[in-house]
């Protein structure tokens, strides 16, 4: 039964996305319930797959029954099942959230929005589930293309940001495609498991080294790793709220997943660690990403733009965990893929809700928001504490493993960068919390009429469909932190390559 779920996870959103225009043509308001209902199926499927993988180990699904080296197979192991649950859960939450945001921002674009939304989710799931490098390229482009279009329908300046993203993103995807070409010339195979068997005797070949270089650069572009991140801030910031809440947590994390997959499954860990010095370079780039992202975030007055630079820094976290290349670091990286996805989703959902209710994203205009939107701000505060790394919120545990990993690898500077980043996050988020909770009304505004100061601030909470995903995410931040030991012992320790 679980094998059929593997196919359903891709087929259901893909077919359903084609039905959205039909349903929208008949009754526009039915698009939203349709999308939410459809996205429940991948969530159930991926949970069932994770359950099967945890009890019986990895399995694969053969498309159309063709045997692996020739046909395409979907491979479900601990890592892919784990990331699938994250992707399906967050896309469902963002779909629930999108109702008011789409009604408000994009009333005429409802039908194309939901069509592209489902296509984007299909692409992300496909990237995670597939066991074939070329099939991965196709899904990478499905997700990227729908992402370009979703960004372009955003606010002022969005088309320009989307165009830059198209150009740079296409270069990234083309590099990945070239990498596949070189691997295919050398091995004659496209299947990941088959490649892992054929490659070891060829590790000294220059063709393989070039392929590896193309993969690394292409995926670093897709993941938005410094200095290939230049497309990211504008694109994520100008996208509509519901879109940035979906792509900011998922797009970069899924690219980081592909990086882990290629470096530790397709290539043996000892190739990525010993034969090419790629991890030293990636690690220092990640340090620069953390520092640069943090500094740029400090300079922003716009809440969403600040969060976008935090995304740049968070990519650095995951890449550091991959680069230290030991069990602790990689555990931290995989744990951080989950934690960061949940935290980023929560923060972007909150930003969208604030924008929806108050019409502003400027940090200094957020005063008294704790009285206007108590639940939303409580969720924001919990997530902010998690970003800083305060236990028992989940951000603490992944950072803990990442820092332990860097210490074990003897990279003290990288550990220092991680700790500094916590400090920067503390400044960043406490600045927002201070504005929202403690700061009185703007003086100029308050002096207008003497009475406005004493006027009771009306409670004006975000609508129900927005509040539910936000509260669930905030609860998730705490729960994932409390149960992180169990998550590591039952899933992540099997996802880390056995040779570590």
């Amino acid at each position, binding site marked *: 039964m679980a094998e059929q779920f593997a196919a359903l996870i891709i087929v259901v959103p893909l077919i359903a996305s084609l039905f959205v225009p039909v349903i929208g043509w008949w009754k526009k308001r039915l698009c939203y319930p349709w999308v939410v209902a459809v996205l429940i199926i991948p969530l159930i499927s991926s949970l069932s797959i994770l359950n099967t993988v945890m009890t019986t180990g990895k399995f694969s699904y053969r498309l159309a029954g063709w045997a692996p080296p020739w046909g395409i197979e979907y491979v479900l192991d601990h890592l892919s099942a784990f990331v699938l649950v994250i992707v399906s859960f967050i896309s469902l939450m963002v779909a629930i959230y999108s109702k008011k945001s789409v009604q408000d921002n994009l009333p005429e674009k409802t039908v194309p929005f939901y069509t592209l939304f489902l296509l984007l989710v299909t692409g992300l799931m496909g990237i995670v589930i597939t066991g074939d490098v*070329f099939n991965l*390229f*196709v899904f990478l*482009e499905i997700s990227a*293309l729908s992402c*370009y*279009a979703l960004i*372009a329908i955003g606010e*002022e*300046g969005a*088309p*320009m940001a*989307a*165009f830059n993203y*198209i*150009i740079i993103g*296409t*270069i990234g*995807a*083309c590099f990945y*495609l*070239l990498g596949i*070409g070189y691997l*295919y*010339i050398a091995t004659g195979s496209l299947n990941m498991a088959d490649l892992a068997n054929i490659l070891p005797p060829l590790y000294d070949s220059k063709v393989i080294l070039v392929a590896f270089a193309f993969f690394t650069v292409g995926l670093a572009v897709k993941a938005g790793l410094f200095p290939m991140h230049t497309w990211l801030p504008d694109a994520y910031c100008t996208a509509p709220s519901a879109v940035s809440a979906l792509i900011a947590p998922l797009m970069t994390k899924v690219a980081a997943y592909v990086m882990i997959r290629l470096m530790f499954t397709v290539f043996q860990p000892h190739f990525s660690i010993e034969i090419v010095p790629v991890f030293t370079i990636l690690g220092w780039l990640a340090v620069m990403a953390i520092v640069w992202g943090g500094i740029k975030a400090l300079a922003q007055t716009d809440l969403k733009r600040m969060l976008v630079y935090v995304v740049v820094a968070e990519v650095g976290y995951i890449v550091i965990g991959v680069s230290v290349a030991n069990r602790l670091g990689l555990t931290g990286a995989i744990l951080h893929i989950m934690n960061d996805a949940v935290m980023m989703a929560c923060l972007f959902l909150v930003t969208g809700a604030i924008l929806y209710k108050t019409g502003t994203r400027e940090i200094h205009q957020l005063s008294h928001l704790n009285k206007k939107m108590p639940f939303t701000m409580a969720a924001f505060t919990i997530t902010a504490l998690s970003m800083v790394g305060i236990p028992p919120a989940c951000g603490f545990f992944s950072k803990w493993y990442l820092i332990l990993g860097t210490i074990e690898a003897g990279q003290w500077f990288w550990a220092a960068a991680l700790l500094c980043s916590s400090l920067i996050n503390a400044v960043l988020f406490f600045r927002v919390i201070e504005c929202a909770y403690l700061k009185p009304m703007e003086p100029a505004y308050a002096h207008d009429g003497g009475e406005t100061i004493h006027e009771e601030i009306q409670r004006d909470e975000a609508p129900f469909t927005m509040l539910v995903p936000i509260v669930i995410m905030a609860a998730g931040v705490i729960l994932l932190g409390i149960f992180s030991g169990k998550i590591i012992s039952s899933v992540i320790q099997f996802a880390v390559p056995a040779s570590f």
Partner: protein
Amino acid sequence: MLDYVISKYNFWIYIILMMIGLYAMIGKKNLVKKLIGMNIFQSAIILFYVSTGVKAGATVPILSGHGHGHGHEVIEVAKYINPLPHVLMLTAIVVSIATTGVAIATLILIYRKYNTLEEDEILMIRKETGV
């Protein structure tokens, strides 16, 4: 040296084309020219793939005389070019067409908003209006 270049000429052509495309994407100010550069870049990769499938003296990979009663003949792989890279490129061509379509639609949006497609002029307008 010349022999080395000539014997691997397909790779040289793809690299030169790719660099032309990359230059257009980086160096040109006009957004349509950037897009054309992107297309050249993608086409270079398609040519690279197609050329990898070719074998000297081989023919199209259609097996004649097999199937009905002739199934026992041995198929000589060297006689047929490798069709797989070509099939992969059909997918890549579709992807590149879709990317071009999205990019052109985005360019229309940009043109409607700024009334120009020159990158420096758009940056000027954005600076003046403060967006």
